[in-house]
Protein backbone atom coordinates (compact mmCIF):
# COMPACT_ATOMS: atom_id res chain seq x y z
CA UNK A 1 0.00 0.00 0.00
CA UNK A 2 2.77 2.41 1.01
CA UNK A 3 4.70 1.74 -2.19
CA UNK A 4 1.62 2.35 -4.30
CA UNK A 5 0.97 5.65 -2.56
CA UNK A 6 4.54 6.80 -3.12
CA UNK A 7 4.29 5.79 -6.75
CA UNK A 8 1.04 7.70 -7.13
CA UNK A 9 2.55 10.81 -5.56
CA UNK A 10 5.58 10.54 -7.86
CA UNK A 11 3.45 10.19 -10.97
CA UNK A 12 1.32 13.11 -9.83
CA UNK A 13 4.41 15.25 -9.30
CA UNK A 14 5.79 14.38 -12.72
CA UNK A 15 2.48 15.29 -14.35
CA UNK A 16 2.36 18.62 -12.56
CA UNK A 17 5.93 19.47 -13.63
CA UNK A 18 5.12 18.41 -17.20
CA UNK A 19 2.07 20.67 -17.28
CA UNK A 20 4.17 23.56 -16.02
CA UNK A 21 6.77 23.03 -18.73
CA UNK A 22 4.15 22.65 -21.44
CA UNK A 23 2.47 25.87 -20.40
CA UNK A 24 5.69 27.82 -20.35
CA UNK A 25 6.53 26.52 -23.84
CA UNK A 26 3.15 27.66 -25.12
CA UNK A 27 3.64 30.98 -23.41
CA UNK A 28 7.04 31.48 -25.03
CA UNK A 29 5.73 30.49 -28.44
CA UNK A 30 2.99 33.09 -28.18
CA UNK A 31 5.52 35.68 -27.13
CA UNK A 32 7.58 34.83 -30.22
CA UNK A 33 4.54 35.28 -32.46
CA UNK A 34 3.66 38.51 -30.75
CA UNK A 35 7.15 39.94 -31.12
CA UNK A 36 7.16 38.90 -34.77
CA UNK A 37 3.93 40.84 -35.21
CA UNK A 38 5.80 43.88 -33.87
CA UNK A 39 8.51 43.40 -36.48
CA UNK A 40 5.88 42.98 -39.16
CA UNK A 41 4.09 46.21 -38.24
CA UNK A 42 7.31 48.16 -38.66
CA UNK A 43 8.23 46.40 -41.91
CA UNK A 44 4.80 47.27 -43.38
CA UNK A 45 5.22 50.84 -42.26
CA UNK A 46 8.43 50.98 -44.25
CA UNK A 47 6.83 49.42 -47.34
CA UNK A 48 4.18 52.15 -47.15
CA UNK A 49 6.75 54.92 -46.96
CA UNK A 50 8.86 53.76 -49.89
CA UNK A 51 6.46 54.66 -52.79
CA UNK A 52 6.12 58.19 -51.37
CA UNK A 53 9.85 58.48 -51.16
CA UNK A 54 10.34 57.23 -54.71
CA UNK A 55 7.75 59.72 -56.00
CA UNK A 56 9.40 62.60 -54.19
CA UNK A 57 12.86 61.75 -55.48
CA UNK A 58 11.45 61.21 -58.99
CA UNK A 59 10.23 64.79 -59.01
CA UNK A 60 13.83 66.02 -58.87
CA UNK A 61 15.85 63.19 -60.38
CA UNK A 62 13.90 61.86 -63.36
CA UNK A 63 16.84 60.16 -65.01
CA UNK A 64 17.70 57.73 -62.26
CA UNK A 65 15.18 55.19 -63.54
CA UNK A 66 17.39 52.19 -62.70
CA UNK A 67 17.53 53.06 -59.03
CA UNK A 68 13.76 53.50 -58.76
CA UNK A 69 13.20 50.19 -60.42
CA UNK A 70 15.61 48.44 -58.10
CA UNK A 71 13.91 49.88 -55.03
CA UNK A 72 10.44 49.01 -56.27
CA UNK A 73 11.46 45.46 -57.12
CA UNK A 74 13.17 44.91 -53.79
CA UNK A 75 10.09 46.24 -52.03
CA UNK A 76 7.77 43.86 -53.88
CA UNK A 77 10.05 40.98 -53.11
CA UNK A 78 10.16 41.88 -49.42
CA UNK A 79 6.37 42.13 -49.24
CA UNK A 80 5.97 38.67 -50.80
CA UNK A 81 8.60 36.98 -48.64
CA UNK A 82 7.29 33.84 -46.92
CA UNK A 83 9.58 32.53 -44.21
CA UNK A 84 11.56 34.53 -41.71
CA UNK A 85 14.78 33.65 -43.52
CA UNK A 86 13.49 34.81 -46.91
CA UNK A 87 12.26 37.98 -45.26
CA UNK A 88 15.75 38.62 -43.92
CA UNK A 89 17.32 38.22 -47.36
CA UNK A 90 14.71 40.42 -49.02
CA UNK A 91 15.22 43.10 -46.38
CA UNK A 92 18.95 43.03 -47.05
CA UNK A 93 18.29 43.71 -50.73
CA UNK A 94 15.83 46.46 -49.92
CA UNK A 95 18.34 48.08 -47.56
CA UNK A 96 20.95 48.06 -50.30
CA UNK A 97 18.54 49.55 -52.85
CA UNK A 98 17.46 52.31 -50.44
CA UNK A 99 21.07 53.14 -49.75
CA UNK A 100 21.69 53.72 -53.44
CA UNK A 101 18.55 55.85 -53.61
CA UNK A 102 19.75 58.10 -50.80
CA UNK A 103 23.21 58.21 -52.36
CA UNK A 104 21.61 59.44 -55.58
CA UNK A 105 19.59 62.01 -53.63
CA UNK A 106 22.87 63.47 -52.36
CA UNK A 107 23.53 64.75 -55.88
CA UNK A 108 20.40 66.93 -55.92
CA UNK A 109 20.70 69.91 -53.55
CA UNK A 110 17.11 71.07 -54.16
CA UNK A 111 15.85 67.63 -53.24
CA UNK A 112 17.81 67.68 -50.02
CA UNK A 113 16.16 70.99 -49.15
CA UNK A 114 12.67 69.65 -49.86
CA UNK A 115 10.61 69.60 -46.66
CA UNK A 116 8.67 66.53 -47.73
CA UNK A 117 11.85 64.64 -48.53
CA UNK A 118 13.39 65.52 -45.17
CA UNK A 119 10.28 64.38 -43.37
CA UNK A 120 10.23 61.09 -45.27
CA UNK A 121 13.90 60.60 -44.57
CA UNK A 122 13.32 61.08 -40.83
CA UNK A 123 10.30 58.75 -40.90
CA UNK A 124 12.26 56.13 -42.78
CA UNK A 125 15.30 56.19 -40.53
CA UNK A 126 12.97 56.20 -37.52
CA UNK A 127 11.15 53.17 -38.89
CA UNK A 128 14.45 51.51 -39.67
CA UNK A 129 15.67 51.81 -36.10
CA UNK A 130 12.29 50.54 -34.92
CA UNK A 131 12.71 47.51 -37.18
CA UNK A 132 16.12 46.97 -35.66
CA UNK A 133 14.74 47.14 -32.12
CA UNK A 134 11.76 44.95 -32.91
CA UNK A 135 14.14 42.46 -34.54
CA UNK A 136 16.34 42.50 -31.45
CA UNK A 137 13.34 41.87 -29.20
CA UNK A 138 12.10 39.10 -31.51
CA UNK A 139 15.49 37.39 -31.64
CA UNK A 140 15.84 37.54 -27.85
CA UNK A 141 12.42 35.95 -27.43
CA UNK A 142 13.20 33.28 -30.03
CA UNK A 143 16.43 32.50 -28.23
CA UNK A 144 14.57 31.96 -24.96
CA UNK A 145 12.06 29.73 -26.73
CA UNK A 146 14.70 27.67 -28.51
CA UNK A 147 16.89 27.27 -25.45
CA UNK A 148 13.89 26.15 -23.44
CA UNK A 149 13.20 23.44 -26.03
CA UNK A 150 16.77 22.19 -25.93
CA UNK A 151 17.40 21.88 -22.21
CA UNK A 152 16.46 18.89 -20.10
CA UNK A 153 13.74 18.04 -19.11
CA UNK A 154 11.79 20.48 -21.27
CA UNK A 155 13.19 18.87 -24.43
CA UNK A 156 11.17 15.71 -23.68
CA UNK A 157 7.92 17.65 -23.53
CA UNK A 158 8.92 19.71 -26.58
CA UNK A 159 9.53 16.53 -28.58
CA UNK A 160 6.38 14.89 -27.33
CA UNK A 161 4.16 17.74 -28.45
CA UNK A 162 6.19 18.46 -31.56
CA UNK A 163 7.34 21.99 -30.78
CA UNK A 164 9.47 23.49 -33.57
CA UNK A 165 12.36 25.83 -33.07
CA UNK A 166 11.83 29.33 -34.48
CA UNK A 167 14.13 30.99 -37.00
CA UNK A 168 16.12 34.06 -36.09
CA UNK A 169 15.45 37.16 -38.14
CA UNK A 170 18.84 38.06 -39.54
CA UNK A 171 19.66 41.23 -41.39
CA UNK A 172 23.15 42.42 -42.19
CA UNK A 173 23.71 45.64 -40.32
CA UNK A 174 26.95 47.25 -41.42
CA UNK A 175 26.54 50.59 -39.62
CA UNK A 176 23.58 49.79 -37.45
CA UNK A 177 23.74 53.09 -35.60
CA UNK A 178 23.78 55.34 -38.62
CA UNK A 179 20.63 56.11 -40.58
CA UNK A 180 20.94 55.34 -44.30
CA UNK A 181 23.40 57.91 -45.47
CA UNK A 182 26.16 57.46 -48.00
CA UNK A 183 28.56 59.98 -49.41
CA UNK A 184 30.85 59.33 -52.30
Amino acid at each position, binding site marked *: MGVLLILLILVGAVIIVAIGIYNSLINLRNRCDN*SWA*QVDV*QLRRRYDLIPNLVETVKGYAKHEREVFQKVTEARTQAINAGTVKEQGQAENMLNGALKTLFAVAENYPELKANQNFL*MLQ*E*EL*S*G*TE*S*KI*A*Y*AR*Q*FYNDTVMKFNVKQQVFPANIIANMFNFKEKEYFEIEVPE*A*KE*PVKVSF
Partner: protein
Amino acid sequence: MYEQIARNKWKSLFLIFFFLCLIFLLTWVFEKMAGWGTEGLVLAVIVAGAMTFVSYYSSDKVVLAISRAKPVEKKDYPYLYNVVEGLAIAAGLPPPPCYIIDDTAPNAFATGRNPQHSVIVVTTGLLEKLNRAELEGVIAHEMSHIRNYDVLVQTLTVVMVGVVALLSDWMLRTFWWGGGRRRSSERGRGGGAAGIFIIVGLVLAVLSPLISQLIHFAVSRKREFLADASAAMLTRYPPGLASALRKLTADKEPLEAANKATAHLYIVNPLIDIGGSVNKLFSTHPPIEERIAALEKM
Protein backbone atom coordinates in the same frame (compact mmCIF):
# COMPACT_ATOMS: atom_id res chain seq x y z
CA MET B 1 16.16 42.63 -13.19
CA TYR B 2 13.07 41.05 -11.66
CA GLU B 3 14.68 41.37 -8.24
CA GLN B 4 15.11 45.07 -8.86
CA ILE B 5 11.45 45.43 -9.81
CA ALA B 6 10.33 43.58 -6.69
CA ARG B 7 12.62 45.67 -4.51
CA ASN B 8 11.29 48.87 -6.03
CA LYS B 9 7.71 47.80 -5.36
CA TRP B 10 8.55 47.05 -1.73
CA LYS B 11 10.30 50.35 -1.41
CA SER B 12 7.29 52.18 -2.77
CA LEU B 13 4.98 50.38 -0.39
CA PHE B 14 7.26 51.26 2.50
CA LEU B 15 7.43 54.88 1.36
CA ILE B 16 3.67 55.07 1.13
CA PHE B 17 3.20 53.52 4.56
CA PHE B 18 5.85 55.75 6.08
CA PHE B 19 4.22 58.79 4.51
CA LEU B 20 0.79 57.76 5.77
CA CYS B 21 2.06 57.46 9.34
CA LEU B 22 3.98 60.68 9.17
CA ILE B 23 1.11 62.76 7.82
CA PHE B 24 -1.18 61.22 10.38
CA LEU B 25 1.25 62.06 13.18
CA LEU B 26 1.84 65.59 11.98
CA THR B 27 -1.84 66.42 11.58
CA TRP B 28 -2.68 64.82 14.88
CA VAL B 29 0.03 66.71 16.77
CA PHE B 30 -1.06 69.89 15.10
CA GLU B 31 -4.68 69.43 16.04
CA LYS B 32 -3.84 68.33 19.55
CA MET B 33 -1.96 71.55 20.03
CA ALA B 34 -4.75 73.53 18.46
CA GLY B 35 -6.92 72.02 21.16
CA TRP B 36 -9.12 69.62 19.16
CA GLY B 37 -10.37 66.36 20.57
CA THR B 38 -11.59 63.12 19.01
CA GLU B 39 -12.78 64.85 15.86
CA GLY B 40 -9.16 65.90 15.36
CA LEU B 41 -8.09 62.27 15.30
CA VAL B 42 -10.71 61.40 12.71
CA LEU B 43 -9.68 64.38 10.63
CA ALA B 44 -6.05 63.31 10.85
CA VAL B 45 -6.92 59.88 9.50
CA ILE B 46 -8.88 61.41 6.64
CA VAL B 47 -6.17 63.94 5.79
CA ALA B 48 -3.45 61.28 5.86
CA GLY B 49 -5.46 58.88 3.72
CA ALA B 50 -6.42 61.52 1.18
CA MET B 51 -2.88 62.86 0.85
CA THR B 52 -1.42 59.41 0.37
CA PHE B 53 -4.03 58.54 -2.22
CA VAL B 54 -3.48 61.77 -4.11
CA SER B 55 0.29 61.42 -3.99
CA TYR B 56 0.15 57.91 -5.44
CA TYR B 57 -2.15 58.81 -8.31
CA SER B 58 -0.99 62.27 -9.23
CA SER B 59 2.58 62.64 -8.09
CA ASP B 60 3.71 62.35 -11.71
CA LYS B 61 1.52 65.31 -12.62
CA VAL B 62 2.93 67.28 -9.70
CA VAL B 63 6.46 66.49 -10.85
CA LEU B 64 5.65 67.54 -14.42
CA ALA B 65 4.13 70.78 -13.17
CA ILE B 66 7.11 71.60 -10.94
CA SER B 67 9.49 70.96 -13.82
CA ARG B 68 7.39 73.11 -16.19
CA ALA B 69 7.20 70.26 -18.72
CA LYS B 70 4.74 70.54 -21.59
CA PRO B 71 3.23 67.61 -23.50
CA VAL B 72 4.19 67.47 -27.17
CA GLU B 73 2.67 65.65 -30.13
CA LYS B 74 4.31 63.31 -32.57
CA LYS B 75 3.72 65.56 -35.55
CA ASP B 76 5.70 68.38 -33.93
CA TYR B 77 8.59 66.24 -32.70
CA PRO B 78 8.77 63.22 -35.05
CA TYR B 79 12.46 62.71 -34.33
CA LEU B 80 11.99 62.43 -30.56
CA TYR B 81 8.92 60.22 -30.91
CA ASN B 82 10.64 57.88 -33.38
CA VAL B 83 13.50 57.34 -30.96
CA VAL B 84 11.15 56.83 -28.00
CA GLU B 85 8.90 54.42 -29.89
CA GLY B 86 11.88 52.42 -31.12
CA LEU B 87 13.22 51.94 -27.63
CA ALA B 88 9.77 51.13 -26.27
CA ILE B 89 9.69 48.29 -28.79
CA ALA B 90 13.16 47.17 -27.72
CA ALA B 91 12.12 47.17 -24.06
CA GLY B 92 8.76 45.54 -24.83
CA LEU B 93 6.81 48.41 -23.22
CA PRO B 94 3.93 50.57 -24.46
CA PRO B 95 5.38 53.78 -25.97
CA PRO B 96 5.19 56.54 -23.33
CA PRO B 97 4.08 60.09 -24.23
CA CYS B 98 6.80 62.73 -24.42
CA TYR B 99 7.06 66.02 -22.56
CA ILE B 100 9.45 68.86 -23.22
CA ILE B 101 11.04 71.42 -20.92
CA ASP B 102 11.93 74.59 -22.76
CA ASP B 103 15.47 74.99 -21.46
CA THR B 104 18.80 74.95 -23.23
CA ALA B 105 20.47 72.90 -20.49
CA PRO B 106 20.51 69.31 -21.80
CA ASN B 107 18.86 66.87 -19.40
CA ALA B 108 16.10 64.27 -19.22
CA PHE B 109 14.01 62.25 -16.79
CA ALA B 110 11.11 59.83 -16.65
CA THR B 111 8.18 59.87 -14.24
CA GLY B 112 5.05 57.84 -13.61
CA ARG B 113 3.82 54.99 -11.48
CA ASN B 114 4.08 51.96 -13.81
CA PRO B 115 5.02 51.24 -17.43
CA GLN B 116 1.44 51.92 -18.52
CA HIS B 117 1.38 55.32 -16.84
CA SER B 118 4.76 56.86 -17.49
CA VAL B 119 6.11 59.76 -19.48
CA ILE B 120 9.54 60.72 -20.72
CA VAL B 121 10.67 64.32 -20.33
CA VAL B 122 13.54 65.91 -22.22
CA THR B 123 14.77 69.48 -22.48
CA THR B 124 14.98 71.28 -25.80
CA GLY B 125 18.72 71.55 -25.15
CA LEU B 126 19.00 67.77 -25.14
CA LEU B 127 17.39 67.51 -28.57
CA GLU B 128 19.66 70.21 -29.97
CA LYS B 129 22.96 69.07 -28.56
CA LEU B 130 22.91 65.28 -28.98
CA ASN B 131 23.07 63.18 -32.12
CA ARG B 132 20.75 60.24 -32.71
CA ALA B 133 22.92 57.53 -31.14
CA GLU B 134 23.42 59.67 -28.03
CA LEU B 135 19.74 60.53 -27.73
CA GLU B 136 18.90 56.84 -28.06
CA GLY B 137 21.28 56.12 -25.18
CA VAL B 138 19.61 58.71 -22.96
CA ILE B 139 16.08 57.59 -23.83
CA ALA B 140 17.10 53.94 -23.27
CA HIS B 141 18.34 54.92 -19.82
CA GLU B 142 14.98 56.48 -19.02
CA MET B 143 13.14 53.52 -20.51
CA SER B 144 15.05 51.26 -18.13
CA HIS B 145 13.94 53.39 -15.20
CA ILE B 146 10.36 52.90 -16.37
CA ARG B 147 10.74 49.16 -16.85
CA ASN B 148 12.41 48.71 -13.44
CA TYR B 149 9.75 50.75 -11.62
CA ASP B 150 12.42 53.23 -10.56
CA VAL B 151 10.02 55.94 -11.70
CA LEU B 152 7.49 55.02 -9.03
CA VAL B 153 9.97 55.26 -6.16
CA GLN B 154 11.56 58.42 -7.48
CA THR B 155 8.30 60.20 -8.17
CA LEU B 156 6.77 59.29 -4.82
CA THR B 157 9.92 60.58 -3.16
CA VAL B 158 9.59 63.98 -4.79
CA VAL B 159 6.04 64.54 -3.64
CA MET B 160 6.46 63.06 -0.18
CA VAL B 161 9.60 64.96 0.53
CA GLY B 162 7.90 68.08 -0.74
CA VAL B 163 4.83 67.59 1.41
CA VAL B 164 6.83 66.85 4.55
CA ALA B 165 8.99 69.92 4.01
CA LEU B 166 5.93 72.05 3.35
CA LEU B 167 4.08 70.78 6.40
CA SER B 168 6.98 71.29 8.78
CA ASP B 169 7.44 74.76 7.39
CA TRP B 170 3.74 75.49 7.81
CA MET B 171 3.72 74.22 11.38
CA LEU B 172 6.70 76.33 12.26
CA ARG B 173 5.03 79.46 10.94
CA THR B 174 1.67 78.76 12.58
CA PHE B 175 3.10 78.22 16.01
CA TRP B 176 5.65 80.94 15.75
CA TRP B 177 3.09 83.63 15.11
CA GLY B 178 0.12 81.99 16.81
CA GLY B 179 2.14 81.24 19.93
CA GLY B 180 3.61 84.74 20.06
CA ARG B 181 0.22 86.44 19.96
CA ARG B 182 -1.22 84.21 22.61
CA ARG B 183 1.67 84.85 24.92
CA SER B 184 1.23 88.59 24.83
CA SER B 185 -2.51 88.56 25.38
CA GLU B 186 -2.93 85.76 27.89
CA ARG B 187 0.08 85.66 30.11
CA GLY B 188 -1.32 82.84 32.17
CA ARG B 189 -0.97 80.34 29.32
CA GLY B 190 2.62 81.12 28.56
CA GLY B 191 3.66 77.66 29.80
CA GLY B 192 1.54 76.01 27.08
CA ALA B 193 3.11 78.11 24.38
CA ALA B 194 6.59 77.18 25.55
CA GLY B 195 5.61 73.50 25.40
CA ILE B 196 4.42 73.96 21.86
CA PHE B 197 7.71 75.52 20.88
CA ILE B 198 9.59 72.60 22.30
CA ILE B 199 7.44 70.09 20.42
CA VAL B 200 7.70 72.00 17.16
CA GLY B 201 11.44 72.27 17.59
CA LEU B 202 11.64 68.54 18.22
CA VAL B 203 9.52 67.66 15.21
CA LEU B 204 11.62 69.87 12.99
CA ALA B 205 14.84 68.49 14.37
CA VAL B 206 13.63 65.00 13.61
CA LEU B 207 12.30 65.88 10.18
CA SER B 208 15.19 67.53 8.39
CA PRO B 209 17.68 64.67 8.55
CA LEU B 210 14.78 62.36 7.88
CA ILE B 211 14.04 64.06 4.61
CA SER B 212 17.57 63.64 3.37
CA GLN B 213 17.58 60.07 4.62
CA LEU B 214 14.39 59.44 2.72
CA ILE B 215 15.95 60.62 -0.52
CA HIS B 216 18.99 58.48 0.10
CA PHE B 217 16.88 55.46 0.88
CA ALA B 218 14.85 55.85 -2.25
CA VAL B 219 17.58 56.64 -4.70
CA SER B 220 20.45 54.28 -4.26
CA ARG B 221 23.30 55.13 -6.55
CA LYS B 222 23.40 51.58 -7.81
CA ARG B 223 20.15 52.24 -9.65
CA GLU B 224 21.85 54.70 -12.04
CA PHE B 225 24.52 52.14 -12.93
CA LEU B 226 21.83 49.54 -13.44
CA ALA B 227 19.84 51.82 -15.72
CA ASP B 228 23.01 52.58 -17.71
CA ALA B 229 23.69 48.88 -18.11
CA SER B 230 20.10 48.15 -19.20
CA ALA B 231 20.27 51.07 -21.61
CA ALA B 232 23.36 49.54 -23.17
CA MET B 233 21.50 46.26 -23.45
CA LEU B 234 18.57 47.96 -25.20
CA THR B 235 20.60 49.96 -27.70
CA ARG B 236 23.44 47.40 -27.98
CA TYR B 237 25.65 50.44 -28.31
CA PRO B 238 27.20 51.62 -25.02
CA PRO B 239 29.39 54.35 -26.62
CA GLY B 240 26.20 56.28 -27.48
CA LEU B 241 25.19 56.78 -23.87
CA ALA B 242 28.81 57.28 -22.76
CA SER B 243 29.29 60.11 -25.23
CA ALA B 244 25.91 61.59 -24.25
CA LEU B 245 26.89 61.58 -20.57
CA ARG B 246 30.15 63.27 -21.44
CA LYS B 247 28.31 65.99 -23.34
CA LEU B 248 25.75 66.45 -20.55
CA THR B 249 28.41 67.01 -17.89
CA ALA B 250 30.55 69.20 -20.10
CA ASP B 251 27.53 71.51 -20.33
CA LYS B 252 27.81 73.88 -17.37
CA GLU B 253 24.40 75.44 -17.71
CA PRO B 254 22.11 74.80 -14.71
CA LEU B 255 18.53 73.71 -15.35
CA GLU B 256 16.25 76.36 -13.89
CA ALA B 257 13.18 74.17 -13.45
CA ALA B 258 15.00 71.65 -11.25
CA ASN B 259 15.27 71.83 -7.47
CA LYS B 260 16.52 69.67 -4.63
CA ALA B 261 13.37 67.60 -4.51
CA THR B 262 13.42 66.74 -8.21
CA ALA B 263 17.19 66.66 -8.84
CA HIS B 264 17.47 62.93 -8.29
CA LEU B 265 15.07 62.26 -11.15
CA TYR B 266 17.36 63.58 -13.86
CA ILE B 267 19.88 61.53 -15.78
CA VAL B 268 22.69 63.83 -14.64
CA ASN B 269 22.56 66.22 -11.69
CA PRO B 270 20.85 69.40 -12.93
CA LEU B 271 22.05 71.51 -9.97
CA ILE B 272 25.55 72.39 -11.03
CA ASP B 273 26.57 75.56 -9.23
CA ILE B 274 25.87 74.54 -5.66
CA GLY B 275 28.86 73.01 -3.94
CA GLY B 276 29.88 72.36 -0.36
CA SER B 277 29.01 69.80 2.25
CA VAL B 278 25.27 70.43 2.21
CA ASN B 279 25.16 69.46 -1.42
CA LYS B 280 27.12 66.30 -0.70
CA LEU B 281 24.37 65.24 1.67
CA PHE B 282 21.98 65.45 -1.23
CA SER B 283 24.33 63.96 -3.79
CA THR B 284 22.07 61.45 -5.46
CA HIS B 285 24.12 60.80 -8.58
CA PRO B 286 27.24 58.68 -8.79
CA PRO B 287 30.24 60.46 -10.34
CA ILE B 288 29.81 60.67 -14.10
CA GLU B 289 33.38 59.49 -14.71
CA GLU B 290 32.56 56.17 -13.03
CA ARG B 291 29.42 55.74 -15.12
CA ILE B 292 31.30 56.46 -18.35
CA ALA B 293 34.10 54.07 -17.35
CA ALA B 294 31.55 51.34 -16.63
CA LEU B 295 29.93 51.87 -20.04
CA GLU B 296 33.25 51.82 -21.85
CA LYS B 297 34.13 48.50 -20.26
CA MET B 298 31.07 46.82 -21.82
